[in-house]
């Protein structure tokens, strides 16, 4: 057995501490240690984007980050996107545009889209497609996802 490491981090605005094995990925820590199962494992090698989280203002594939690397970091997961009981405009736009079918990739897309709109409130279609190219969806063909992000970008709450 391996000695566990004590990690102090901030998740969705709350200080969190956890113990993890040095070989555990951040995704494993979120899902198995902290019970935050919104981030999904689709490939465990950084190619599907279902485990996307925001770490210190950058989107990362949490399967490619070690849990111990979260020490001192600020992490936002899908569980931290809605504002209390109110859905984030991106989440509402996904529902209104039927931008999900099975929904397994949806958390990753919403987290990535939020990171994009936080940085660039008015992205072009090409820019949205480029930014979301790290996230695979097998159900929708992306059409309605791109439209949802466009609609969210046009909403005043996002533009502020």
């Amino acid at each position, binding site marked *: 057995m391996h000695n566990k490491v004590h990690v102090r981090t901030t998740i969705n605005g709350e200080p969190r501490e956890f113990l993890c094995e040095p070989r555990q990925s951040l995704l494993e820590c979120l899902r198995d240690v902290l019970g935050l199962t919104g981030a999904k*494992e689709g490939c465990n090698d950084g190619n599907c984007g279902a485990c996307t989280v925001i770490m210190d203002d950058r989107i990362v594939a949490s399967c490619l980050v070690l849990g111990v690397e979260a020490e001192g970091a600020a992490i936002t997961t899908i569980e931290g996107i809605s504002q209390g009981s109110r859905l984030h405009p991106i989440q509402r736009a996904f*529902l209104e545009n039927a931008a999900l079918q099975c929904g397994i990739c949806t958390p990753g897309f919403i987290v990535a889209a939020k990171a994009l709109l936080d940085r660039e409130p008015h992205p072009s279609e090409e820019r949205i497609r480029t930014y979301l190219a790290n996230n695979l969806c097998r159900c929708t063909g992306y059409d*309605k996802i791109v439209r949802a992000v466009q609609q969210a970008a046009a909403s005043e709450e996002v533009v502020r």
Partner: protein
Amino acid sequence: MSDRQYAVVGTRPVRHDGADKVTGRALYGADFQAADLLHGCVLRSPHSHARILRIDTSKAMALPGVKAVVTAADFPQGPDRMVDLGDGDVPISYVRGNLLASGKVLYRGHAVAAVAAVSQHIAEEAAGLIEVEYQPLPCVLTAPEAMQEGAPLVHEDLKTKELGQPTDRAGNVAEHLRFAMGDIDAGFAAADVVVEREFRTATVHQGYIEPHAATALWNNDGRVLIWCSTQGAFIVRDVTACVLDIPVSRLKVTPMEIGGGFGGKITVYLEPVAALLSRKCGRPVKLVMTRKDVFEGTGPTPGSFIRVKIGARNDGRITAAQAYLAYEAGANPGSMVVPGAMCIFAAYDIANVAIDCYDVVVNKPSTQAYRAPGATNAAFAAETVVDEIAEKLALDPIEFRLRNAAKEGTRRADGPKYRRIGCVEVLETMKQHPHYNAPLEGPHRGRGVAVGFWFNIGFPSSCNISVNADGTVNLVEGSTDIGGSRTSIAMQAAEVLGIAAEDVNPSVGDTDSIGYTSMTGGSRTTFATGWAAWEAAQDVMRQMKERAAKLWGVDPAAITAETGLFRSGENKLTFRELAARLVETGGPIVGRGAVNPKGAGGSFAGSIVDVEVDPETGKVSILRFTSVQDAGKAIHPSYVEGQMQGGSVQGIGWALNEEYFMSSDGAMLNSSFLDYRMPTALDLPMIDTAIVEVPNPGHPFGVRGVGEANIVPPPAAIANAIYRAAGVRMRRLPMNPPAIMEAIWDQRD
């Protein structure tokens, strides 16, 4: 076309499970947690074909933290027999043998043993400690090779079934079937133009983003509880009961949310193995596949070799069509070549047809359904030959298709005569679509079209509806929801009840809580489970009328109910008002619907695509894409469009990039999402849709089901577009840059 207006059907409400799915709260297969949960790992074969000489699990068992190890020897070992697990008879030895190999491994990735341990990492370490001694055997990977005399035998005891009759012929051909009508020789003799071509398509995977996941607990009372991601909870129950030799009543399967399936999550891989592990250690065991496991150990769809010959007269009428199809079944028979053969000329009214199809076993994973299984391969071949003939006859490709289009009364070569179908309407919609009539300018650009067919199926479905005192209803149905079907089912109930879609609270039941319901597949869910909901809602309405009749002292037959208002003379009650008075009028109301509908209506789809081919690199860019499909009646148009868009893009991936890249010894060399290249958002334009509605006379709302036919035409349409862009006829999938460059160079030579 459908012109009936409904209050709920045809609108676009937010899906009922939406909030859970955009907040990360929806729980999928791998998200299941339980006290004392153990994690498992499946050891898989490194060889594509080998005899298992010895398995020694002692070192794995000795590793601290390991609680159980199982091999095929742990299955009940009764004699082989045929079992019907929902899709025709199969030998139980094939089902069991695909769960854990016995005697031989038949493909690389074939499960050999499994471990349960206190953590995933320890389980993986332990799997690595299992010693398996193999005697490697020569492997065979494609249908044409496997059909040769003297080819290595995948199953030594397999005998070819010839035209429905058993034979003594040993080989890799599991079955040869023929569909024929008319006089094929006379048909070709009457033709002015005859084109015959050969096609090859690579093995491709369904590519759902969620790997298979299952947890099982063999409880102390002898009941086996399973939580898993599946297209069919009752199929999991029945298969698991069958291979474990226990009654179905001993099993309860709770379907978790499912992260995509496309046909690949009908087959059972993990549940019986998790159950065996749990029986040994008395704790719940969770098994989750890695992506590599998914590629190497679960059903891809068959690679194929197809020859198509079509003859037509100068007036544009097809006189004869012939096809030879050999599909790679993978390790076990059942390649879906038969539906491929049934679909190959299904869009056309042809008098003289001969189709021979061969189901061929090879040393690749046992193939499974993938969205209109078998039909996409077939349409790639047939629809490119149709395009070539239209060109030779100097006819517009849609006009040529219209002159030969199947319609009500047309007989297909496999027997059935069509009832009302929408093939002509789909083609007319394509012909009039702005996309088809827009100019396409610029060098190296071309436009292509193709059409495709898929049957759609009925099969059993169940639904219960309970009325709440506040005028809402709870609806429980048995179809796992892969793409919004809770909502399309709930909307059909709402329409009957005269209430809003939002006033129906739908959920997917476990196998203890709802009647038998077949899998989510065959484009059947909105059709058949929607029908069960329609029937359950009718049952509720009948009982509601009885209650109103009791209150008003009238005959129930005298009561009318329209858009949620019950009336009899001057008496009026809304659905909500009456729902509040159930206790005083006799107690709760529960409506039930249980159906096995036979009226599934086939669906036609068409693709229009503009491409640009880079003559220096061979890269094909999709500039514009339009998907047209006959939905019968679109219950929730947004999710119908979503099916069309998703199927189209899977077809685009199949056409341009996706393939199992195999080494000569049968190893898949690209078993990751980096190297198995599925389309990304950046590879695509918006996917336009045009929903055609030719109501299915076999459904209360005219639903046909739209899950599948949309994947059938894209590869052929893209091949036809590439021809117009680059002057090369592509006859092999995928049409990736190396293949395009080779074709361009061959043309220059």
